[in-house]
């Protein structure tokens, strides 16, 4: 019935976001904001310094269905992944939505296909990529 973006799979992530938890302990400086709509997100990374692996990613934030599902999926995609690989995948994901690259292989997570429809909505790309940008920045601080 509705636009591809709002297919069941994304609505499921929207209504039941994975890895979402209260991160009030993080300061305003650690909040990432989408200046277009004022939506914001905080990210927590469970990182194993010895192995260079991200064990889990958690988020806190309220936003639109695109933002929430893209964030929820991201936390699933990057469970138990090496930091350097995550960085690469983030860049690939963002370029893809900007229409500058091919669909990245995110360990076979089919859900991301749903975001393809975004490529014609540049304003909404910021919704989908806010958390990905945020994760990239937080990885830089590790």
């Amino acid at each position, binding site marked *: *019935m*509705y*636009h591809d*973006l*709002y297919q069941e799979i994304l*609505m499921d992530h929207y209504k039941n976001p994975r890895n979402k938890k209260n991160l009030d302990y993080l300061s305003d400086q650690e909040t990432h904001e989408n200046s*277009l*709509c*004022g*939506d*914001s997100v905080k990210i927590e990374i469970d990182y194993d310094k010895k192995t260079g692996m991200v064990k889990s990613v958690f988020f806190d934030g*309220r*936003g*639109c*269905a*695109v*933002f929430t599902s893209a964030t929820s999926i991201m936390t699933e995609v990057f469970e138990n992944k090496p930091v350097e690989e995550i960085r690469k995948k983030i860049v690939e994901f963002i370029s893809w939505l900007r229409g500058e690259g091919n669909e990245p292989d995110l360990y076979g997570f089919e859900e991301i296909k749903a975001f393809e429809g975004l490529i014609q*909505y540049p304003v*909404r790309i910021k*919704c989908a990529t806010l958390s990905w940008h945020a994760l990239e920045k937080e990885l830089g601080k590790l």
Partner: protein
Amino acid sequence: MKIIEKTQLSTNVRMDFPILQRKLVRNNDEIPLIYLDNAATTQKPQVVINRIAHFYTYQNANVHRAVHQLGEEATADYENARRLVQKFIGAAFPEEIVFTRGTTEALNMTAHVLGQFVKAGDTILISAMEHHSNLVPWQILAEKNKASLRFIPFDENGELILDDLFNNWDDSIKILSVTHGSNVFGTINPITEITRKAHEHGCIVVVDGAQSAPHLKIDVQEIGCDFYAVSGHKMCAPTGIGFLYGKKEWLEKLPPYQSGGEMIKSVWLESSIYNDIPYRFEAGTPNICGAIALGEAIQYLSKIGMAKIHEYERNLTNYALEKMQGIKGLKIYGNARNRSSVISFEMENIHPHDIAQILDHQGIAIRAGHHCAQPVMRQLKLSSLARVSFYFYNQFEEIDYLVKQLYKLREFFN
């Protein structure tokens, strides 16, 4: 249920706007465009589009200093546009109209040229419901001149709380700048009364007319304000043109804003003598064709009649308010007694961006976001709102369709 008159505007104005005939493609089907984002910018009637084409096809020349026929014609039409604006807002003199890019530039210009009247310790008063364009320039001026910026609060209906202000007037207030129409709540502020009271205390009054001039008959002399800023693109004119009205006594004693060609009478290597008003405030080649097309838009609006436009829009808005209030989980922000055709709302569990995008899929163009009014959003503890805004070419049937889609939306998300 109140009875709302569904009378149409007598002329079939919709046919005057070619874009309203546009079809959008959705899943290989053609669907009509329902444009409800008029507070952001309005559509242009064919006469305005034609006027632009006519200018570039037959008349184009630079204005003022030319001694050739095209230049004389362009200058005459440009200055005639100034007189059309003057009459449209009831100004006393054509030279009280300064053409600008829009409201934002008009307000920046005002804050700049009034700088000398704000001393350390003075207060600039604006309202808490201002668009960023009527907030940030004053923030900057206040900071630069070590003055303070104060805010008239608004209540839960989106109306300004004025009693306290005027009962305990603070003599440090030198400038009051307030919007005539709110782009979030749709409130029409009692600007004439505000001006009268502020003037009793010798305070300069600036009005942001971006959301009022397109919808109401404006009479700046009746209002009595010192400055009034308007964007053309929100009233059927092209982008890139608008104007600042400034009382002659004021403009005459103010310094220029930008500098370059046309704003000076005599330039020496070390200094310059400024030109007469309004040219002092129009440095460089202006948006000549834009001003002329704004004149055309004004003639178009005047032919329909601003009173008629206002009445029709009021009926349309009341109809929409009533229908929308019936949707469970939908909350409208702004409930002023005197209001324009802007309706901001949110829906339970549905983000405004999702509302806008899904409605777009049905051909309905609305806006979602902070509407360049972040302080308003913060007071409401929201990061964004959905907003529909009507112009006289919108129809009751379009509202029926919108409401139907909002019901579907609620169903889908719950």
